[in-house]
């Protein structure tokens, strides 16, 4: 028997790590992976609350989050490839214009 709060603390920690990675990392791919870490933290609290409230809707939401994450990854990695093709760098400090 694990209290619900333990799951929420773990989820919050993963989300905080994602935010910190988003701020600290300079590599655009690693920044993207930090976003995935944040989404995973949110998914954990969805599943924990689903078990707590006895409602399967929480688990269905996880699928929607996964679909959005997959779509975001596909488009984001394509944008990263396009940026690399014109800038020859992955450092976000050197990518300061949206124009390709």
């Amino acid at each position, binding site marked *: *028997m*694990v*209290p*619900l*709060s333990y*799951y*929420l*603390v*773990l989820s*919050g*920690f*993963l989300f*905080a*790590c994602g*935010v*910190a990675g988003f*701020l*600290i*990392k*300079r*590599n655009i*791919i*690693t920044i993207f*992976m930090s976003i*995935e*870490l944040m989404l*995973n933290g949110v*998914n*954990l609290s969805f*599943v*924990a609350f*689903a*078990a*707590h409230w*006895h*409602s*399967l*809707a929480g*688990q*269905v939401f996880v*699928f*929607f989050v*996964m*679909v*959005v*994450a*997959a*779509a975001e*990854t*596909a*488009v984001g*990695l*394509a*944008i990263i*490839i*396009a940026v*690399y093709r014109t800038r020859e760098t*992955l*450092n976000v*400090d050197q990518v300061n214009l949206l124009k390709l």
Partner: protein
Amino acid sequence: MSIHLLLFLAFGAVCVAGAINLLAQTHPINSALSLIAVMAALAGEYLLLGAEFVAAVQVIVYAGAIMVLFVFTIMLLNAGVEERTTGSRVAVLFGIPGMLLGSILVGWVVLRHSGTEAVPAGALPGDPRTLGQLLFHEFLLPFEITSVLILIAIMGAVVLASKPPTSPAGKVD
């Protein structure tokens, strides 16, 4: 200490270690591998909560498909060790204390106010049959909308990643 709590702590330790390793590593491929470890351990947590189908999808889609896409991109772009700049030093200065403060605050509030009501292992069996019925009856409209979203995302990825059309010889655009 029950076996359930022991398993939770074991998977949780892998999650925490992987998340910290993601921040500590400077090479993106190491960060990607530690993120895969986090996702696999999260699948274990989902199994403890009784969400079997979500755990399977987590391993197949997240740790499998999405992370393979990341690793392929890292190898395609030949990403090297990231360089530190002045901007990132300021981010470290504010990011790490902010992260610690945020997680301590969230942990304190949650542990203080949410009570000690325990979630029993496998409390809510999330088998594919029940989930599918819910997904295709109550959540049919969001399901269809996400299918349109993912179609648009596929087309956008193809358009963005395709090589720009080469201009005819002798012509400067």
